[in-house]
Structures are given as C-alpha cells and as structure tokens.
C-alpha cells in the first residue's frame, strides 16, 4: 500500500491536471499547474536520479495532452534537478522531514514553492512563446499563472494539513 501511494498520487494529480485544469484559464490569462505539487512534495529520501526520471515522465504525460511535447518535460526535469539544492538550504540536514507546509513551516515552504513554480512557469511560457515575441503578454501569463498555481497548491496543502490534524 505504502509503495503504491506515490503511483496513485501520480495518477490523481495527472488526471486532475489533464482532465479538469487543462480546461480552466482564469481571466483568460492564468493557468494552474497543480501537478507540480506531486513533484515538489515527493519524499526527500528518493534517489535524485529516480526523481529526475519521474519528473520527466510526469512532464511528458502532461505534454501529451497539452500538445506541447518536450516543454513541460524540460521544465519539470529542471526543477527536479534544482529541488535537492533548494531543500538543502531550506530544511535542516540532520532531521528527516516531509516536504509539506506543515513540516517545513510557512517561510521555507513559501520560498521553495515560489522559486520552483516561477522557474517552471517561466520556462514553459518562454519556450512556448517561441518567435512571437509577445513579451508583455507572456509576462502576464507567467505572473498570473504563478499566482494561480501558488494559491491552489497552498489550498491543497492546507487541506492536507487539516486532514492530518483531524486524523
């Protein structure tokens, strides 16, 4: 059961992303990439190489549905590569901690989330822009989407937080 949880999580996040969130574009600018929450909250013990491969598969599976082959993969692999370095700054080294709002505390999690999401969204939208050079529009997309994803992930985290407290 314990082993199957991440796979189940993967499928849940992926389904939500491609079935529901794909259709939602807030104010015609903001997109939510909730699936990042899966990648960002994977256990710290996980081997880095495995993490990279999971990130690639996740990005690729999302890409297939978004019709942007390679873009999400590249962005996901980038933040998966960056993740351990960020966490080594933001979490105590000796202590085993889960990566969540509850475990890390607000400040650390906020910083962690902001940096990774911004990087991811910037990469996705910048690569997607290509030669259009609609810079203002792309910047609007990036900032609004970062806010949207950020808020949604925080809400999910709060939900989990309350859930665990209840349990």
């Amino acid at each position: 059961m314990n082993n199957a949880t991440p796979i189940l999580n993967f499928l849940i996040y992926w389904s939500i992303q491609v079935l529901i969130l794909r259709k939602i574009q807030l104010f015609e600018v903001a997109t939510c990439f909730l699936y990042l929450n899966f990648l960002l909250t994977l256990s710290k013990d996980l081997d880095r190489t495995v993490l990279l491969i999971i990130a690639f598969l996740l990005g690729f599976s999302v890409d297939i549905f978004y019709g942007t082959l390679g873009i999400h993969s590249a962005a996901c692999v980038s933040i998966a590569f960056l993740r351990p370095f960020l966490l080594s700054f933001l979490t105590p080294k000796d202590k085993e901690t889960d990566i969540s709002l509850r475990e890390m505390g607000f400040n650390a999690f906020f910083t962690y989330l902001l940096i990774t999401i911004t990087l991811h969204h910037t990469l996705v939208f910048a690569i997607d822009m290509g030669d259009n050079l609609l810079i203002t529009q792309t910047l609007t997309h990036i900032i609004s989407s970062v806010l949207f994803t950020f808020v949604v992930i925080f809400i999910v985290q709060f939900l989990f937080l309350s859930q665990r407290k209840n349990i």
Partner: protein
Amino acid sequence: MQSLLFFIQQYRTFIVFILLEIMSLSMIVFNHRYYNALFFDTLQRYTLNISAQTDNVWEYFNLKNINQDLIEENARLNLMLTAKQKQIDKLIEKNLKAKDTLVSQNYELVVAKVVRQTTHKNKNYVTINKGSIHGLEVGMGVISASGLVGRVVLVSSHYATVISLLHIDMSVSASIRRNGVVGSLQWYPNSTLKAKLLHVPSHLSISVGDTVQTSGYNAVFPPDIPIGIVEKVGQKYDETFYDVDIKLSTHFHQLSYVYVIKNLLQKEQEELEKQTTEKIEGKKKNE
C-alpha cells in the same frame, strides 16, 4: 573502466539530468515549428560553413588534375583558334582581292604573318610566313595596314625575308600627297621611326604635316600607300635640296599581319622598259 564506472556513479544524477533535458529539447525541436526551423537553420548554416571550408582545402589537392584539364583544354582551344585564324586569313584575302579589283586589276595582295623581325639594327629584316608556294617572288613590295614595310629579298618555299624600310640600303620613291612632289625616301640609322626625304628641290613647296606616300613610279609599290608625315623641313644656305625629316607611319614595333603585293603586270612593265633601253642602246651602238 573502473574509473569510468566510478565517474558515472558519481555524476549519474547530472548525467541523467543532461540526458533528460536533451530528450525534452529534442522533442521541442521536432514538434514545434519555430524551434525546428531555428535549430535546423542554424545547423545548416554551420555545416555549410564547415563544408565550404573543407572544400577549400580539398580543392588544393585537385589542383594538379585541374591544371592538367586546363592545359588540355588550352591546347584544344588553340587548335580551334588556328583553324579559325586560317578561315579569317582566307576571308581577309578574299576581301582584299575584291577591294583591290575595284582600284586596279594590276595588284593582288597576299596576307602574311610576321614571324620574326628586328628594328634595332642598321640592317633590319622581317620574316614572314608565306613563301614561293604562295606565289611570292623576290622584289615584291610589302605593306601593312599602317603603311609601307619593305621588299621581299629572299624566298623559301614557306617563308620569305623582307628587307625592312629600316635598312640603310633601302630607298623608296616617295611623293607628297598634297602636291605630288617626288623624292627618294631613305631611313637613317639609330632613329627607329624617322627617315629623310632626299632630292626635293628647294624651289618646291613643302611643309610640316604633309603626308608622304608611295609615288607609284616603280613596279613594286602601287601609288598612294602612306609612308609617313613630314616632321621637319630644313634648308641649308648653300644647298639646292631641302633637308626633310619624316616620321614613318608604319608601326614597326607591333607588326603582326602584312600584305605582300603581287603586281600582275610587273613583268610586262619591266620587260617593256628593258626592251626600250635595249633598243635605244642598240641604236646608239649601231650608230
């Protein structure tokens, strides 16, 4: 091997990261039109550049073959050129004949190419590439497009030597075109393109700039062939002849084609003159 495995083991995360990124980027390149164009255009530009550079180097190795080819082509073209030149010669000859018949039936021109010539000696000769089989004979006059050249002195079967006007023993009967004053033209050495007109009596009018031409008083040259222009007219106090300097009009330094004059009636004229002298001499003897 051990160290290689160790290296891979140590940096496997980074290697996997790079590999996955490459996979992602290649997917982007292959699936997005702009990146596809960008990537392959850039690639093509660089590869073209490189192939141009290598071509440059390889060309040096081919130079020998290219040289050989060029030499062969050169030979072939030269052959063609000579064939064409022969045709042109024939045409010129024909043309001249036609032109000449309008002027007078007496003269016929043979086109010849100058093979060798000198201008710097006291006795200069010109060698031409036509000989007895072309109908040349000793004593014929030779002219060029720009003026008088000389007389044939020796003939072999394919070549002939011409005593140039630039020869101290050569003299030509000449006249001034404007008024028909006749004199004898003699080149004087060490001055390539200058000659003197001798035996012009000082009571006749002659001035700088007059054109000097052949007089037509001998059977060698037809009349009205240009020789030169009067450059200086001098008169010494106690002499009865002018001292006339003439600038020769013939471009002796760049002679290429010349025309040998065949006077068809030369023999007849000479025969008549000979008979005349003989008859009168004979009469004198008889008396």
